[in-house]
């Protein structure tokens, strides 16, 4: 017999967990006590939501469910934003929260909150453990649920007395869930129909989303597109699947996307959506699109098909598996005219102006990505900085992470910490705004404590830029609650006070020199770019 708290640690070890992100408190102390006897490395973040975001970054790079930990009450509620963020982007994380003692549940005791209830709308599944003997089974299930089918966050709430209970530990080898059997293989009839529809199409287009990355199917998608010569656009979550300069790649579609991609969408006669959920920012008027275009939708989650757009050919299953099947059954094609038409639009390079005394953020991102190694993990925050990064970063084979579905400010630095922990050999760069930086700047401490050479780009425009732009365009330029200059600290001095090297640049020439320093640095590094306050997103 062992303590359930020790069993929790053993469960994690059995799942191959090497790193966890968390923040302690009384209700989770038995677990923390046992964790010291394990080789699992605990990263102490400075706020619980960042433990969730760090786990998200770790999970996205490692491809496996990652773990975050918080105590009961405020610790658990602080985690909520990260859980919702992971849910919106289908990121597999397992969240462990401490809970008050079972005999006190429901009495509104100190730091008691119904966290399984609060998180219910945005978890894939949750458990409140009431019988310690069930703990090994629950952990096994939680990891399986988080990382299979359509991935997502799973929450395990463990009352403190349960953690102290003695149990027989036997980690199950497999899960038995009669209700949960994600479809992997695509229906043969439907696969045939897809092949026929694509063969008949004159101007087909692939729209690839985050599901392709989640299914580890980037290679398969590229093979398929190259074989059939079908051009590709991606959603924000799908950025990085295709190298930016690939001849078949037309860029990111949607409200914040590029002209080539949106033109491809409006001109195509058949659209193959794969691992993309037709979010409103990607496809603003799905009704209109479906009227003029034959829609094929491939997704592992049947509930996504037909939810936001009328679909002509649905195909449920794992992208990787299905793309393999499709490639095997479809003929090679040329599509010269269609591709030529699109490349004409693609090759018109937009002109960028430099404003005196400022760094042009779009040019900066292009210059930066040209200098970064191919396997760079780029993490963008939310706002103008995010869109500048999406549309100007030259993806070559690395990864792009951002909070696409929720648009959670404060995601980039903690997610970069997680990504770096998962892949110490990769360069990891976080791009954020001066607003979002201040939602996460406490994590500079984590970077220092963990000695993680994460690089940070801070685009200081002294505005909550994206909201400022919205007010300019849609509220008669009535700028309110978006001016942050008066409160902004000296970011360079702030970084230095943590012992992080930092530089401020105000011209492109300075920026280019600083990019060299950033790339050469083997330590964490913060680069503040002075960006014009009225710079536009697109």
């Amino acid at each position, binding site marked *: 017999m062992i303590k359930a708290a020790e069993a929790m640690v053993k469960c994690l070890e059995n799942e191959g967990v090497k790193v966890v992100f968390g923040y302690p408190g009384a209700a989770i102390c038995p677990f923390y006590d046992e964790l010291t006897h394990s080789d699992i490395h605990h990263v102490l973040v400075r706020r619980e939501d960042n433990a969730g975001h760090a786990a998200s970054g770790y999970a996205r790079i490692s491809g496996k469910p990652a773990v975050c930990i918080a105590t009961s009450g405020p610790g658990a509620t602080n985690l909520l934003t990260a859980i919702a963020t992971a849910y919106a982007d289908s990121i597999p994380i397992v969240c462990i929260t401490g809970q008050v003692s079972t005999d006190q549940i429901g009495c509104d005791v100190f730091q008691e909150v119904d966290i*399984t*209830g609060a998180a*219910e*709308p945005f978890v*894939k*599944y*949750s458990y*409140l453990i*009431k019988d310690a003997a069930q703990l090994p089974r629950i952990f096994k299930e939680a990891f399986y*649920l988080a990382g299979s089918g359509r991935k997502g966050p799973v929450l395990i709430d463990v009352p403190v007395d349960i953690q102290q209970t003695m149990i027989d530990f036997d980690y199950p080898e497999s899960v038995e*869930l*009669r*209700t*949960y059997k994600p479809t992997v293989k695509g229906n043969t009839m439907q696969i045939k129909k897809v092949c026929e529809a694509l063969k008949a199409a004159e101007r087909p287009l692939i729209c690839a989303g985050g599901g392709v990355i989640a299914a580890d199917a980037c290679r398969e998608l590229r093979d398929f597109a190259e074989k059939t010569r079908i051009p590709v656009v991606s959603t924000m979550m799908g950025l990085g699947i295709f190298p930016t300069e690939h001849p078949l790649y037309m860029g990111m579609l949607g409200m914040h996307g590029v002209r080539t991609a949106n033109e491809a969408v409006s001109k195509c006669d058949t659209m193959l959506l794969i691992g993309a959920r037709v979010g409103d920012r990607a496809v603003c008027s799905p009704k209109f699109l479906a009227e003029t275009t034959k829609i094929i939708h491939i997704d592992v*989650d*049947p*509930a996504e098909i*037909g*939810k936001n757009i009328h679909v002509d050919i649905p195909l449920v299953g794992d992208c990787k598996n299905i793309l393999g099947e499709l490639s095997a059954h479809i003929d090679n094609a040329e599509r010269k005219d269609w591709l030529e038409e699109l490349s004409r639009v693609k090759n018109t390079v937009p002109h960028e102006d430099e404003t005196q005394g400022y760094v042009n953020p779009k040019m900066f991102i292009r210059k930066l990505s040209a200098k970064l190694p191919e396997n760079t993990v780029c993490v963008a925050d939310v706002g103008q900085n995010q869109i500048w990064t999406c549309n100007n970063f030259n993806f070559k084979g690395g990864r792009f992470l951002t909070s696409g579905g929720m648009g959670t400010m404060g995601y980039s630095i903690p997610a970069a910490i997680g990504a770096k922990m998962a892949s110490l050999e990769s360069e990891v760069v976080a791009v954020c705004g001066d607003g979002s930086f201040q939602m996460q700047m406490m994590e500079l401490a984590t970077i220092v404590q963990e000695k993680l050479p994460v690089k940070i780009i801070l685009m200081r425009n002294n505005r909550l830029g994206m909201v400022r732009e919205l007010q300019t365009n849609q509220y008669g330029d009535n700028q309110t609650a978006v001016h942050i200059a008066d409160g902004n600290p000296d970011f360079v001095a702030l970084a230095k006070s943590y012992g992080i090297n930092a530089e401020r640049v105000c011209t492109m020439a300075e920026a280019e020199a600083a990019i060299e320093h950033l790339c050469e640095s083997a330590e964490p590094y913060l680069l503040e770019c002075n960006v014009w306050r009225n710079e536009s997103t697109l």
Partner: protein
Amino acid sequence: MKHTISILVENHAGVLSRISGLFSRRGFNIDSLAVGVTDDPKVSRVTIVADGDEHTVEQLEKQLNKLIDTIKVKALEPDELLSRELQLIKINASSQQRSEILTICEIMGARIIDISPNTMTLEISDTTMHLARFEELIKPYGIKEIVRTGVIAIQKGADTIKK
């Protein structure tokens, strides 16, 4: 349009709140909801009557299927289901009115389950439509209180939810 949906679920803590949460979250309107354990004590059966067009019901079925606790979801076609709802009604009834009420109950298939000097308590189990008709007939006596369960439904003939 009204739709009757039967759901088999794992009899876990929290499953009902997951289902009802899903309805409110996705903006589906529930007319009635009834839950009870089945012949297998680990499985509960939920019957939901909801309002919406074809697209809504399809979405509903998919979302319900997506819940980890869901074993089976079936939208029952109106012409292939047998449905029942139970109602208890307390009405004003003087001793002179009793036999008249008794006649109505006999014809409508209701039972008298309690009586007091000035009231009677009636029980009726039938389709929602039949219950509404009964209520109309009994209304003139003065309804003091009504309680009703949600609708439960089963398929006609030999078919079951499992096939």
